[in-house]
Every structure is written in structure tokens, then in C-alpha cells.
């Protein structure tokens, strides 16, 4: 069935003489116009997002350098990647990063939303304040953190030093470089805060009133009302974050470390870029992308199961 011609269109439109046949009538009808409104978005995303994402999967089974036509090589790209220490390291870095960054970002977003959701003249500007780092251009954001994390001159180590705390080498050591990337990602949670705020708005105040009448404390209200209502929003946020936070490592790893030190910040997007646009191994890059798809899908399924099990336990 096509989106364009459904019976409802004809039913709502009375017998008016069509000026330019069926199309003219369609364009004048309310439902026809509604479908037309969606056309640029649907067509554009099909060409610019869906088709490229799907065709990349096909590319994964070919040898392709973007100039000569692709040739079928079966699973060779996957075999090469599984044997490549750099690809394995990059997957490991990416997963480690996700396991640290996503939960912290989620807790941060919900915590800040709860703190700043109250009415009151002061909270509007405070919400703007916590949102600010999210809108800094990524290229500038990377430069700022390169300065903040500079072990000798940077303001972070100056602050830590004056407090008598240890002053790590941040981007120079592999472990602290990975921590630095997690830290950077914790400041750009504006989108999550907004989604959590919107989610909080959907909770009817009556529920809290009822809970208070029943003598429930604040913690009980949070666990029994706020969190369950927020759960679908938080799930959406988690899934989106799994995708977004990893793709956002591209600019800092490209600008600040170029994957170093010792490949510690070679996350999946940077390796994909190197494979495709440095080595012109589009097939290998596509295969690597497919592996990352599969891992992300596994994570999503895992989280859904986890939450599903918890809810069952709650009911019982």
C-alpha cells in the first residue's frame, strides 16, 4: 500500500471537478497535503540516511576503493578485521568508553533535570548554564579541552595542583587519555537533560499528591512514581546515547590525539575514517561498520532484557 493513495483521501473529498486530474484534487485535499508535508523528510532521509546505511552492509562483502567497481570477496573483509589487532583494540576502546560514558551521562542528565525542573526565577538561567557546553562547536570544544588538559600549562592541573591533588598527564598516558574523553563527554549532556525534563513534565502532579496523602516519603515517591514514568524516556535516551556518544568521539580523537597515545583513543569512528578515507579500503571500513552495528544491537537487546526482567520482578 502506498502512502499517497489511501481510500480515506477520496472519502473526505467531495465531488469537486478536478482541475488537473487526480493530482490537482489530491493536492487540494487535507490528507493529500498532510502526506505532501512529509514528503521532503521521508524522501530525503531515505536517500541520505537509509539507503547509505543499508548499502554499506552490501559493501562489506566487496573489495572497493571508491574508484574501480566493487568486486565480491565474501567474508574476507571480516576475516581480515578479526585478525587485525588494531581493529580489535578499537572495538575494545569503544566498548570501554560506552560502558563508562553512557551510564554516567544518563545519571547526570536525570540528576540535573530533577534538580532544575522546579519553577522559580533562578532555575531558567541555571538550565541554560548546564546546557551551554552542549552547543559549543565540536572543533572549538576539542581545542578548549586540549588547553584545559595540558599537563604543564592547563587550568585543570593548575587547579588540582593548588588543591594539593595529583596532576596527571591526561592525554599523554593511555589510561588517563581514555578518562579524559569520558570526562569531556560528561559536559555535553544538554540533549539528555531536556529529554528528562520533558519526561518529568508528563508526570501528573496528582500522583504525587496521592502519594503524599498515603504517607510516602520523597525517596518512595521517586522510586514508585518518577522512575517508572521516566523509564521509557530513559530507555530512548540510553539507546540514542549509545549511538551519539560514540560518534561524537570522532572530532576530539581526530583533533586532539589522532587516536593516540598508543592507539588508546582510536575509537570506532576514527578507525572507520582511516580505513575509508586514508587507505581507501571502503570494503574493510564497511565491514567494520557492520561489526559495530551488530555490537550496538546486542547492547540494545541486552538492556531491553535487563529492564524487562526488572519490571517483572517489580510486579511479582
Amino acid at each position, binding site marked *: 500500500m502506498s502512502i499517497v493513495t489511501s481510500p480515506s483521501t477520496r472519502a473526505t473529498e467531495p465531488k469537486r471537478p478536478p482541475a488537473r486530474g487526480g493530482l490537482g484534487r489530491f493536492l487540494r485535499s487535507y490528507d493529500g497535503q498532510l502526506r505532501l508535508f512529509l514528503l521532503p523528510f521521508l524522501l530525503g532521509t531515505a536517500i541520505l540516511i537509509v539507503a547509505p546505511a543499508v548499502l554499506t552492509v552490501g*559493501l562489506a562483502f566487496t573489495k572497493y576503493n571508491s574508484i574501480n567497481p566493487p568486486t565480491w570477496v565474501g567474508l574476507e573483509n571480516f576475516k581480515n578485521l578479526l585478525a587485525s589487532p588494531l581493529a580489535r583494540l578499537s572495538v575494545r576502546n569503544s566498548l570501554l568508553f560506552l560502558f563508562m560514558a553512557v551510564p554516567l551521562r544518563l545519571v547526570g542528565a536525570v540528576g540535573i533535570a530533577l534538580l532544575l525542573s522546579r519553577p522559580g526565577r533562578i532555575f531558567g538561567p541555571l538550565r541554560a548554564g548546564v546546557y551551554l557546553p552542549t*552547543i*559549543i*562547536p*565540536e572543533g572549538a570544544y576539542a*581545542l*578548549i579541552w586540549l588547553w584545559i588538559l595540558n599537563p604543564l600549562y592547563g*587550568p585543570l592541573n593548575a587547579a588540582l595542583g593548588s588543591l594539593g591533588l595529583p596532576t596527571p598527564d591526561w592525554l599523554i598516558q593511555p589510561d588517563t587519555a581514555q578518562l579524559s574523553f569520558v570526562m569531556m563527554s560528561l559536559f555535553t549532556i544538554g540533549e539528555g537533560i531536556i529529554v528528562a525534563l520533558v519526561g518529568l*513534565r508528563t508526570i501528573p502532579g496528582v500522583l504525587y499528591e496521592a502519594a503524599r496523602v498515603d504517607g510516602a516519603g520523597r525517596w518512595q515517591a521517586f522510586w514508585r512514581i518518577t522512575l517508572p514514568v521516566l523509564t521509557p524516556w530513559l530507555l530512548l535516551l540510553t539507546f540514542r546515547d549509545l549511538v551519539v556518544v560514540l560518534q561524537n568521539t570522532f572530532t576530539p580523537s581526530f583533533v586532539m590525539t589522532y587516536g593516540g597515545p598508543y592507539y588508546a583513543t582510536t575509537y570506532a569512528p576514527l578507525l572507520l575514517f582511516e580505513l575509508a578515507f586514508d587507505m581507501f579500503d571502503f570494503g574493510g571500513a564497511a565491514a567494520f*561498520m557492520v561489526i559495530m552495528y551488530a555490537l550496538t544491537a546486542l547492547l540494545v537487546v541486552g538492556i531491553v532484557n535487563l529492564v524487562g526482567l526488572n519490571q517483572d520482578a517489580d510486579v511479582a
Partner: protein
Amino acid sequence: MWRKAGPAARVAAGIALAVLFVLPLVWMITGSLRPTGLPPARTVEWWPSDPQLSNYAAIFDLLPMGRYIRNSLFVVVVAVPATLFTAALAGFGLSQLRQPWQSRLLIYTVVLLMIPAPAVWLFRYQILSWLGLLSSLWALILPAFAAGSPLLVLLFYWTFRRTPASFFEAARVEGADAWTTWRRIAMPMARPTTAAVIVLAFALFWNDFTNPVLYLYRPDTYTLPVGIQILKQVDSTNWPLLLAGATLITLPMVVLFLVLQRQFLHDDALSELLDRG
């Protein structure tokens, strides 16, 4: 709700958090005002002893800034209105569509959100190359005609879903077509969302670093975020200069955000909806 539960503590915690989040911006600006060649500060320096704007002038001497600024402006002037238009129309269309198509397209839109950007890099490069748009600013603008990001469509969808259906029904009964209903009734009611989408769309195109890196390779087509990185190749340890560059591209974004944020982050916009339940 529990108003009396330590409002002062809540405000204090909120202020501390906001200060922490604004800190990177503060350090960027103070760092950009430091005279070049000054020995590094050994403690946290909140304001340079001899603040100067000379670093900003130096950038204009070193780089063809006029061209970068023109390119960046061209992209946002075309892309932001196009994004707003397509996203608002699609969001309205989605909110008024009948079942089962509404649910189906809603799922489609949410699935789009989950597709990682790197997944489309390779083939979009191919598509742009076929269209002859590689190293053209249109390579950056093109997504604007597909609503920029599915998130923006969803924002409008949520807004129009919350609007009572009777508003739109009344217009329809009086013979208004969908276009008029959208323009005269729906959009004037969606001001906070419009403000938010303008900010997000501007951020999408003005801040964009990845797409220029992937699809622009002629220096005369570089936009500001890419152009600024050349400073790092010229003099990678001249921090005041690098930070002045960072400030330069951040400032327009921050100003736009601060002007429009009241529309969607301010109390009236939020509390009106908070109190509705």
C-alpha cells in the same frame, strides 16, 4: 510538590553545577585574552594580568578568515530556514496523520535516530560524488532538505500532539486546507519549539566539523570549524591564538542560544506544562 524541602540547598547545588558547566567557556575566553609569549601561569588564572585582543587580529592575518566566514554564513543562511521549514511541516504532518501510518512513520523516525552517523559516511561520499557535490558547500546543506535531524521532526510532532485536536478540527470544518492550518494555527502555537529547533539547527550546521572534513577538500570551500584547525598546524603550542579561534566560532552560537533559550528553557515555558497534570 515538596517545596519546603531545602530550597536553598537546591539553589546552591544548581548554581555550583551551572558554574562547573560554564567553566570550559570561561577558561576558553580568559585563555584567548592572554598576551602571546607570556610565561605560563602556575596557579589558576581567572583573568589575565594584561588582557589583549591582539590574538583575534592575528588570526585574521594568518588565515583567509573572510572566506571561511562567508562559507559558514552561506551554509547556515540556507540550511537553517530549510531545516525549520521541512521539520515543522513533517512534524505537523506526522501529528495529524491517521493510524496505522502515524505509528509506522513514528517508528521509522525513531529508528533513524538510532542510525549512527558514521554508518552513512561511506555511501554519502559516493552519492555526493555522483551528484558532483564533493567539495561543494551544498554537500553540507543537503541534509537540511530532509529536516536536518529526525530529532527536530519529533520535537514538532510532540508539540502538535499536545495541542488539542479540536483546534485543528475547527479550522478544517471551516474549510481551511492543511497548509493554512499549519501556517495560521499550528505554527503560532509552537513558538518554544520553533525557538528550540532554530538553536538546534544552527548548531547542526554552524558547528559541523565532521562533514567538512569528510566531503570538503578544496581549502576555498572550508567553513570556520575546519579553517580554525589550520591554526594548529601553523603553531600548535600558541594557546592564546588557538583559544581565540575557538572563541570566535563559539561566540555566535552562544549568543543565539542565550537570546532564544528563554523561549524554551525559561520557567514560563516549562512550568506551564509542569502544572498541567
